[in-house]
């Protein structure tokens, strides 16, 4: 900065020389301080520009931001479209200017798209910022602002596929549970179904019934992302991976003789049975995985390094927020160095206190299908202005390496075996090669033992195009109840879709 020349330089210097020079020196220090603080401030202002210009967009859709309602007066909320161009949510304006949010497919997309009339959920919440913004010429917008005309908000194209969603919903039928499918190589969520459901068109009218205490169904909960279930045998994916990591050179030599149950040698009260007491005979790690042999994995559970298992689980996103734009629950994994033998035997087969969401299981499966690299799930494809101009494309999900390519390929091979020789026989077909893992997690409700049926898998085995996770509450077994639903999804996506 140019500083108007100090006046002492132009006035007769009455000061003795030494004091003048010390004055000059301290002035130089003062100028130095100006630079220090100017630098700090420019850093801060740079941050403000960055925040307002770039970072804010992603945060504004947050449901806690009540300010977005301000835009209700300025924009007509944009539409949400499926990847294949069908309108999933739109706003109709009648002659009096009254606006109605319409969901043409009713209950079908209730959880994925959500609602925007009673708070905001699902994509209505995640894409709120884009829907309530209009990308017209800025001058035109100022003009609209001046004339108090509402601008038409931008449309958001999601990654959801109408056909697949319909197939998944039909396959699940009226059983409670969730189906969620994604493209492993990109992270695009293709379908997301949760039962029981509700009609977003009438959610305001139905609100008191939906939230009444007598309603225990939890219709509003998106089971695909927020539902937490004991993972059952699908957790053997994590156990197998941990075993391989602890025995890098010799896991292939693993051998176990299954006689239908595993009794802890130190305490014979600790017994884990194979499903239906089935006797699997001599098994390797691969066949134990394919047979979903509880006894073998319970034994692995007692031998494994608890601290390392906890670390692996957390690296695989247990106890972490899942990287998705809509609300999701954290999966829970409580094993630590203090866990006792019984806890380890239970946890190894996905029982006990471990809880997992279908989305989480899907993400691990997708990472296995994609060479160990998770493409984080995306539900938004692009934003279009009302005249069809593309404003912003979101691209694929961010990458996260969950395991090495070698590990992914080995576990993927195990999962293929589950279909070819193991518990997922319902998926055997010549049309494509599927891979996956079944799970039948037992829980007690009202004194009765019930089973949550799981299937998580991908297909085709060589070049995975789709990963899917199914959970059905109070089902028979994963192989019998969940696998056929996955089959329907795979069939549609890989063979029937034109």
């Amino acid at each position, binding site marked *: *900065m*140019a*500083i*108007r*020349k*100090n*006046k*002492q330089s*132009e*006035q*007769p210097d*009455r*000061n003795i020389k030494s004091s003048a020079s010390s*004055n000059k*020196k*301290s*002035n130089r*220090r*003062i*100028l130095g*301080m*100006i630079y220090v*603080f*100017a630098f*700090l*401030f420019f*850093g*801060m*202002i740079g*941050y*403000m*520009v960055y*925040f*307002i*210009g770039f*970072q*804010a*967009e992603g*945060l*504004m859709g*947050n449901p*806690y*931001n*009540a*300010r*977005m309602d*301000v835009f209700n007066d300025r924009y007509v909320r944009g539409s949400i479209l499926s990847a294949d161009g069908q309108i999933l949510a739109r706003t109709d304006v009648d002659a009096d200017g009254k606006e109605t949010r319409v969901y043409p497919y009713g209950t079908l997309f209730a959880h994925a798209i959500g609602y925007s009339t009673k708070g905001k959920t699902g994509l209505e919440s995640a894409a709120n910022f884009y829907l309530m913004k209009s990308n017209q010429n800025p001058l035109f917008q*100022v003009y609209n*602002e*001046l*004339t*108090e005309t509402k601008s038409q908000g931008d449309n958001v194209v999601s990654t959801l596929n109408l056909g697949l969603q319909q197939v998944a919903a039909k396959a699940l039928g009226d059983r409670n549970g969730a189906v969620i499918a994604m493209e492993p190589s990109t992270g695009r969520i293709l379908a997301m179904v949760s039962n029981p459901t509700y009609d977003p068109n009438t959610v305001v009218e139905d609100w008191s019934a939906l939230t009444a205490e007598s309603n225990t169904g939890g219709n509003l909960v998106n089971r695909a992302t927020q539902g937490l279930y004991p993972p059952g045998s699908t957790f053997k994916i994590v156990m197998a991976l941990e075993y391989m990591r602890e025995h890098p050179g010799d896991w292939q030599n693993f051998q176990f003789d299954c006689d239908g149950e595993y009794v802890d040698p130190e305490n014979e009260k600790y017994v884990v049975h194979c499903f239906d007491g089935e006797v699997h005979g001599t098994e390797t790690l691969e066949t134990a995985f394919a047979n979903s042999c509880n006894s073998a994995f319970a034994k692995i559970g007692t031998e494994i390094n608890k601290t390392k298992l906890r670390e692996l689980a957390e690296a695989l996103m247990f106890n972490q927020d899942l990287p998705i734009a809509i609300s999701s629950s954290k999966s829970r994994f409580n094993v630590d160095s203090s866990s006792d033998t019984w806890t380890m035997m239970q946890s190894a087969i996905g029982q006990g206190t471990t809880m997992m969401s279908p989305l989480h299981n899907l993400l691990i499966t997708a990472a296995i299908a994609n060479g160990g690299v998770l493409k984080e799930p995306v539900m938004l494809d692009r934003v279009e202005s009302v005249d069809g101009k593309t404003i912003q494309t979101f691209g694929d999900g961010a990458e996260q390496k969950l395991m090495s390519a070698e590990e992914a390929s080995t576990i993927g091979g195990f999962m293929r075996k589950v279909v070819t020789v193991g518990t997922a026989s319902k998926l055997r077909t010549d049309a494509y090669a599927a891979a996956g893992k079944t799970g039948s997690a037992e829980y007690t409700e009202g004194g009765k033992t019930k089973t949550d049926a799981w299937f998580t898998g991908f297909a085709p085995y060589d070049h995975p195009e789709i990963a899917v996770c199914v959970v059905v509450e109070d089902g028979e077994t994963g192989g019998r109840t969940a696998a056929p639903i996955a089959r329907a999804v795979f069939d549609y996506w890989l063979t029937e879709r034109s």
Partner: protein
Amino acid sequence: MITIFTTASKYICLLLIVLYTYCNFRYLSIPDQEDANALCGWQFRMILLIHFLCNVILYLKTGETLTVLFYLLQLAFFIAFVFLSRAVYRNVNRLLLNNTCLFICYGLIMLERLSVNKAEKQFAIIVISAAVSMVIPYLIDKIWDMVGWRYIFAAIGIALLGMVFVIGATSYGAKMSISIGGFSFQASELVKITFVLCTAGMLSKAESFRDIVITSLIAGAHMLILVMCRDLGSALIFFLAYLVMLYVATGQKLYLFFGNVAACGAGVLSYFLFSHVRTRVFAWLDPWADIDNKGYQITQSLFAIGTGGFAGLGLYQGMPNKIPIVEKDFIISAISEEMGGLTAICLTLICLGCFMQMMIIATYMQSGFYKYVSVGLAIEYIVQVFLTIGGAVKFIPSTGVTLPFVSYGGSSLVSSFIVFAIIQALYIIQGNEDEAETEINEMAEDEAERELYGEADEPSEEYLDENYDANAVFDDIPEEYEDPEPDQGRGSRRRRRR
């Protein structure tokens, strides 16, 4: 029609504040005092225009005639403040004067929008503080012996802070205010000033290392009490002011280095000692993780700033009241939300401009004491600005300090007025001394030229008050009061460089 006006005004105000900010920095690089003063004249007109436009919006939105009355009072105050200051002290720094008005203008507009009641209280305090602060330059000139008061200042400071520690009221985890007869005031705001005066006095008298140690002990006592009151924001402000003063006085970079190391150490220590520090650091690192509770205030602030964007939502169009204690610590977020991020950035830059001007004034000072005083006050000012704005935009953890002149709060206002008045006093005193000196030298030729210039061209209004009297050394104030129009002519001839 109303919308057209409010929207147009919004953009005009943005343009004006950008222009104003430009002038603010342009001022620093104009070599000619008259041109610089002309620029200040324009700046003042811009303030009045912004003030007018915003008040029209306030009136249109509220429809209260009281708004008009309040506007007229404020207008009268601005004009009286600026013109009286210039009439009483010819050599007053007009840039600082303008900036004071601008901050008050934005503060009052925002407060009136948030709560008329608070704006009225604020205005009353402004008028009183402004009146009191007018006397300060005169007082400082008369009690030349402020250096001799250094121990008294130290005693006052420590006693006041001690009182806070003993009988202070706790708010947001820190003891900050004492209430006397229903009036509560924040002692640290006033001690800030006595602290600088005391330290500057000690440093200007310091002859040996022993004196430096004594100075440091007194400063340390101040900070220790502040830390015990858990008012860490103030402690940091005091500390940095002390450190920079010490550095400017001694030129020892080592002090700066060890000071910063000590500050970092103290920061880490306070993180472990004080729970409210941990809360704030947590809220800074990831406010989204606990958006309901710890992160609530900062996320609301970020929503406000982000939703407002660069242009702002317009007065009464946002929801600044959603931010807890918005009128104090987060006033900049409210301004950013409704009057635009651009305005917030400009205000930040103007604060930086004030600081630069104060530091430059410090370089003009011949006496070490005055130099240290202005450096100390300048650093306190800029650190406070940095803490409050940086906290609101999540650049740094929030510390709960106010933005001088803009935030609501009596103690902060009074103290800001005194700080600016002291800086003005130093500027005026030095200016008058320079005049006296140059007068002595140029008396002879002045006498000869007086008639020629004085009557030939009438100087324009703009620099009328800037002219100075040959005989007016500061001691002659009373005389000058009676004759506010000194002889004209010289101002246009000789360019005073300040």
